[in-house]
C-alpha cells in the first residue's frame, strides 16, 4: 500500500487576527487556530489518492502541544495516523530548522511514497518548507502544483508558472507542494470525528528524533528576524473640483508628482 505523508501547520485564523500597532506583534487573545488553509488542500490531495488507489496517510505537524487539535481535525477528515513534533527547543525555528525536524520524523515513520505539503503558510508565507524538506529527504520535488494524478510511471503534476503551466512527471518517491486551486477539501465526518477523539497521537521531541540542540529551534536557524512592523496605508484625501478635463489633468499632475505615472 502507498504511504503518504502530509505536513500541516496550525496557524491563527486569519478571520480573527489583530495586531498590536505599537509592538507589531499579533494579539493572541481571542484568536482561534485553524489548519493552514492550503494544507487542507494537501490533505485532500492525499485523501483523493487514498480513495482511488488505497493509501495510508500520515499527518505531521511541528508545534506546541495545542497543535494536537489540528492533527485530530486532520484525522476526522480521513487521515490514518498523526504525529505531533513538539519540544520547547523547537521554538523559534526558521524554515531550515523546521525541515530538519519534519525530515527526521518522516524517516522515523518509515519509507514514504509521497510527501504532500501546502504551498505556503498564511503566517510565515515563505513557501520554503516543502522544497527544503525534499532536499533533506533526498527526494525530487514539484512546487506550485494545481493538478495531480497518480500514473503507473509516477505522479503527473501541473505546475503553475508565471507564463502558464508546466506538465511534470515525477518518479516516486517525490514531494509536491500544492496550490489552493488543486481541489476543494472535504468536510470531516462524524465517524471520523469520533475516531479522532480517541486516537493515540505520539508526541516526538528532539531526543526522540535524534536531533542535536544546534540543529533545531532558534539556535539551529540562520534566519534572524530584525524587525516586525504593521505596514500602515495612510491614504491622503483630496477632492478635485472643476469640469472633467480640469480634474483629469489635476489628477495626472498629482500622480506624476507621486511617481506613479
Amino acid at each position, binding site marked *: 500500500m502507498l504511504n503518504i505523508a502530509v505536513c500541516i501547520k496550525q496557524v491563527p485564523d486569519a478571520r480573527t487576527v489583530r495586531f498590536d500597532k505599537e509592538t507589531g506583534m499579533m494579539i493572541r487573545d481571542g484568536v482561534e487556530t485553524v489548519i493552514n488553509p492550503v494544507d487542507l488542500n494537501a490533505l485532500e490531495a492525499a485523501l483523493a489518492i487514498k480513495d482511488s488507489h488505497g493509501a495510508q496517510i500520515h499527518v505531521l505537524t511541528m508545534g506546541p502541544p495545542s497543535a494536537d487539535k489540528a492533527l485530530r481535525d486532520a484525522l476526522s477528515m480521513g487521515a490514518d495516523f498523526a504525529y505531533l513534533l513538539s519540544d520547547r527547543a523547537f521554538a523559534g525555528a526558521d524554515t531550515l530548522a523546521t525541515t530538519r525536524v519534519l525530515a527526521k520524523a518522516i524517516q522515523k515513520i518509515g519509507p514514504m511514497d509521497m510527501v504532500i505539503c501546502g504551498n505556503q503558510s498564511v503566517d510565515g508565507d515563505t513557501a520554503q518548507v516543502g522544497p527544503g524538506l525534499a532536499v533533506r529527504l533526498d527526494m525530487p520535488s514539484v512546487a506550485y502544483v494545481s493538478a495531480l494524478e497518480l500514473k503507473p510511471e509516477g505522479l503527473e503534476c501541473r505546475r503553475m508558472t508565471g507564463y502558464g503551466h508546466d506538465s511534470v512527471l515525477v518518479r516516486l518517491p517525490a514531494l509536491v507542494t500544492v496550490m489552493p486551486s488543486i481541489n476543494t477539501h*472535504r*468536510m*470531516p*465526518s*462524524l465517524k*471520523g470525528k469520533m475516531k479522532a*477523539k480517541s486516537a493515540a497521537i505520539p508526541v516526538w521531541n528532539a531526543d526522540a528524533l535524534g536531533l542535536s540542540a544546534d540543529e533545531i529551534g532558534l539556535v539551529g536557524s540562520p534566519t534572524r528576524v530584525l524587525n516586525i512592523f504593521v505596514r500602515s496605508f495612510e491614504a491622503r484625501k483630496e477632492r478635485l473640483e472643476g469640469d472633467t478635463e480640469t480634474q483629469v489633468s489635476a489628477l495626472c499632475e498629482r500622480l506624476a508628482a507621486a511617481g506613479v505615472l
Partner: protein
Amino acid sequence: MAQVNYFLTEEQQMIVELAHKIAIEKIVPIRARLDETEEFPWEIMKDLAQSDLFGVYIPEEYGGIGKGCFEICLALEQLAYGCIGVTTTFAASALGGYPIVMFGSEEQKKRYLPDIAAGRRLGAFALTEANAGSDAAGIQTSAVEDGDHWVLNGTKQWITSAGDAEIYTVIAMTDRHKGPRGATAFLVEKGDPGFSFGKKEKKMGLRASSTREMVFADCRIPKDRMLGKRGQGFIIALKTLDFARPGIGAIGVGLSQAALDEAVSYAKQRVQFGQYIISFQAIQHMLADMATQTEAARALVYSVARTIDADSRDIAKISAMAKLFATDVAMKVTTDAVQVLGGYGYMKDYPVEKMMRDAKVLQIYEGTNQIQRNVIGQALNKEYSKV
C-alpha cells in the same frame, strides 16, 4: 455571558459542530444562488453524505450512527441556520428512511438503509395528494395485488425531493372500504415501471428544495416492497410524522437563530439620528423578544426530542407542540428581522427576506399548524376525560 446549557454529550457536541461547519462553509456561500436559480443542491448533498449526517438516526448495523430524534434535531437546527431549503432536502431523506427503520423487514433494511445512511441515494415520503392534505384519509392512490406484484395507480402532490430522490415511502389505499385502516405503505424506487414525475413546482420560498408530482400509471412493484403490514399505512405515516415533527421545530429554531443574528449585527452597525439603532429601545425590545422566543422554542424542541428518545409511545401531542411553537416563532422572528433591517431587509442584498419567505412553509408542511392544534386539542380532550 452565560448561555442556556443543554448539557450535550461530547458526541452531540460533535454533531452540532460538524453541521454548523457545513452550514457556514458550504451552505451560506451559495444559498442566495440556490434560491435564485432553484437548483437542486447536489454539491451540498455530497458534503452531507461525506459527513455521515444522513445516517444519524439509522442503526449502526445498517451503516448509520445509531442516534435518535434529539441528535437529528441538533443536526437539522444547525443546517437550517444556513438554509432551510437545503435542510428540507436533507430532512426529506430521513422522512423516507425512518419508516424503513421502524417498520422495514430485515431484508428491506439491508437493502435500503446503508444507501440512505451513506447519502448514496436520497429518500422521500409521499402521502399528500390534491384532495388529501390535512385530511390524509382522503387519499385516492390505490394499490391492487396482481400475482407477485402490487400495481399502483394515482398521483401524489407536492412531494419533497420527488424526481431527485430514489427511494420513496408511498402510502396507497389497498382496501378502500376499510377507511383509514385500508391504507398500506410501499417502497417505490425511481425507475420502477409506470412511475414518473410531474413538473417541478415554483415556490415562494424553500427554493433549493425540489417539489414535484409523482404519477403512478399501472406502476408494478414486487410484493416484497410492501412496508409493514397490509392496512398499517396510516399508522406508519402517523408514527413517521410524530417522530419527524420535532425536527421541523428544530429547523424553525435554526432559522430563527440565523434571523436573530442578522438582525442584531445589523442593528449594531446601522446609524440613524447619530446613533446605532441597537441603542433605541424600540429595536432593543424587538430583538429581546426574538431572542427569548428563539431560546424558548429551542428548549421545547430539545425537551420533546429527548422525551421521544426515552419513550416513543403516545408522542403525538408533544411532538405537535414542538412543531407548532417553534415554527410560529420562526415566522415571527424572521418577519421582525426584516423589520429591523427596514428597507435593506426587504432587498435581496441581505439574507433576511429569503428567511422570511422560507419560514412560511414551516407553518404549512408536515401538517399545518392548525392541524397541530387539532392534534394537541384532541389529546387534551382525551387526557382530561381520564380524570
